[in-house]
């Protein structure tokens, strides 16, 4: 991402205004958005489903790897026997073509990988991006130059190609979901995060409260951790919400090129990959993972937007007509109108 774009991404949060004024305010603003609440509930549900996958499948009485050759029509390419892809009391969402593995089990187990990979990758991207961005923003000219070049190099690397190469290099004993997450994170995303954080850091570091911290006698690093990181939280969280769907898609794309997670471990991306040709013969095979992915992405995006709005007091309220002469004037008068203001005498003490 270019610096220009980084500037765009950060534009949402005005630095001179306290972006989030306290956690309580944040929750209040978040709670005020019904869509964001629903999205948060959906995300929570998805995570819960992923965590409880063994329980849920035990409830159904199936597992994601056992073949059921009797449930598919071998002569017809292995299409599931029965309506809606073989939906039955035993197989709540039917079975997979060619193998007869249970769709429900694969879907809920797939959530583990898809969510795990995308959240894991996001975590790495954010941690690495913030570290590099802050270092570049605070370091001297040379540190900045070197780090910015490194970032550029990663930005110009084609994800798919590097993924193909790296997946071939790394020994097969390395846990594949971790590897996939790492590759997605390392090759993409972190660098754009770093650019954004760098731009943000450059802006923040000139703020008076950072100067004040230096005047107190703290070292640069202490100042960075204490004063900058909290200020970065808002834009980084917002940005992370955009990275999650991108990472889910990246995992699906890697599966398409045959370099995703290892079978028999199911992932939504992998299911989609093998299912797209079944669109006509067994549509539910494609639709179920596609729907799961869609719901996840929509929920994550809406939640991300919600968090962005909740973090940004300007976006929270509609246009104001007051002069907003100086912003603190509003805070000044935040005292309810009915309550008399403190008299000057009290103030002087």
């Amino acid at each position, binding site marked *: *991402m*270019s*610096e*220009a*774009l980084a*500037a*765009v991404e950060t*534009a*949402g949060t005005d630095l001179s205004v306290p972006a989030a004024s306290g956690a309580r305010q944040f929750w209040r603003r978040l709670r005020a958005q019904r869509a964001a609440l629903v999205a948060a509930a959906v995300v929570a549900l998805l995570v819960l489903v992923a965590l409880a996958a063994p329980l849920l499948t035990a409830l159904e009485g199936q597992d994601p790897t056992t073949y059921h050759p009797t449930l598919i029509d071998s002569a017809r390419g292995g299409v599931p026997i029965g309506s809606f892809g073989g939906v039955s009391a035993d197989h709540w969402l039917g079975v997979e073509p060619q193998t007869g593995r249970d769709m429900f089990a694969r879907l809920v187990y797939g959530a583990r990988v898809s969510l795990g990979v995308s959240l894991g990758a996001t975590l790495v991207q954010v941690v690495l991006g913030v570290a590099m961005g802050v270092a570049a923003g605070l370091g001297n000219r040379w540190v900045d130059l070197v780090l*910015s*070049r490194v970032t*550029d*190099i990663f*930005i*110009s*690397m*084609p*994800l*798919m*190609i*590097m993924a*193909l*190469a*790296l997946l*071939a*290099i790394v020994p097969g004993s390395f846990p594949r979901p971790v590897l996939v997450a790492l590759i997605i994170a390392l090759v993409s995303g972190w660098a754009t995060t770093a650019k954004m954080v760098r731009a943000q850091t450059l802006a923040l570091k000139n703020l008076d409260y950072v100067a004040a911290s230096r005047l107190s006698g703290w070292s640069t690093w202490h100042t960075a951790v204490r004063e900058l990181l909290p200020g970065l939280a808002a834009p980084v969280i917002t940005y992370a919400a955009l990275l999650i*769907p*991108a990472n889910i*898609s990246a995992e*699906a*794309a890697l599966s*398409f*090129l045959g370099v995703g997670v290892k079978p028999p471990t199911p992932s939504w*991306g992998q299911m*989609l*990959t093998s299912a*797209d*040709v079944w*669109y*006509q013969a067994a549509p539910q095979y*494609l639709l179920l993972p*596609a729907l799961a*992915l*869609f719901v*996840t*992405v*929509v929920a994550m*995006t809406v939640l991300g937007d919600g968090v962005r709005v909740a973090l940004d007091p*300007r*976006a929270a309220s509609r*246009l104001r*007509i007051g002069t*907003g002469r100086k912003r603190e004037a509003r805070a000044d008068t935040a005292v309810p109108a009915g309550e008399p203001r403190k008299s000057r005498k009290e103030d002087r003490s």
Partner: protein
Amino acid sequence: MSGFTGFVLRRVIGAVVTLFVLSVVIYVVFYVTPGDVAQITCGPRCSPAQVHQVAQQLRLDDPLYVRYWHFLQGIFAGQDFSTGTSVEHCPAPCLGQSYQSGRQVTDILLTKLPVSFSLVLGAMVIWLLLGVGTGVLSAWRRGRLSERVLTAVTLAGVATPVFVIGLVLMIVVCGELQLLPFPQYVDFTDDPEQWAWNLLLPWLSLALIEAANFARLTRASMLETLAEDHIRTFRAYGVGERAVIARHALRGATASVIALNAVTFGSAIGGAVLTETLFGLPGIGQELVHAVKVVDLPVVVGMVLVTGFFVILANAVADVLYAVADRRVVLA
């Protein structure tokens, strides 16, 4: 003025350094990738002696840095290749010769780039229209049902992998409804009309994925602009809502849209692998995946460098355009 020239100069130097390091990284990474190039080129059942001959022929026995040095020489001084019966010259910006086909990488690029450009340029028009249009509408109709529907549609675009969108589009539009012939790349210079018809579905598929980003960005920056003081000025002077949206709010979003567009364009040139694969478009992405599979190092490095070049160029262009579109950036 001098500031601008300096900015461009620094950008160019930075880009050259970045490309140089990128090429080293790619060289090293693919050097350690499994896959014996000589064996693959020679054929599965070649004898060790034959494999050795091929390795010599392709200079695979040289140490890595020597091979890299030859590569650099080729870029600056050109290279000569033997076809067996004669010697062929590959002029100065020579990125080497494919191990597999013996073609010059620059020739391969020249045949693939127009395809990738055709795909991305057309898709760009659509994603801009679709994305910015949706963004404007949803900023305008904020909070209403129509906005929700639009948002959901564009999100469906991001959420669905391109191979699913593309295949389903193709099955429905070309297979079942038979509205369009199955896509098959036709060169623009051969037949512009066929070129467009054949690329319509690939354009749509690629655009559908990207449009949502543009919609989100447009909507966000428009809402931001709408909250700014100068919008209040025009409202207070009786300027109608439509004019405020179209003239002032949208104008405020252009800088960021331009920036995002340049970046998206750059990365799509080499990154539209899946779209190209699915629709059988012989573009850079498809070639790259193939070259990686057969460890055709010169092709891989050449392609990555060229796509990297476009990404970097696009980033630089984005920065310049952004600065031009938003004078306040120059001020700051």
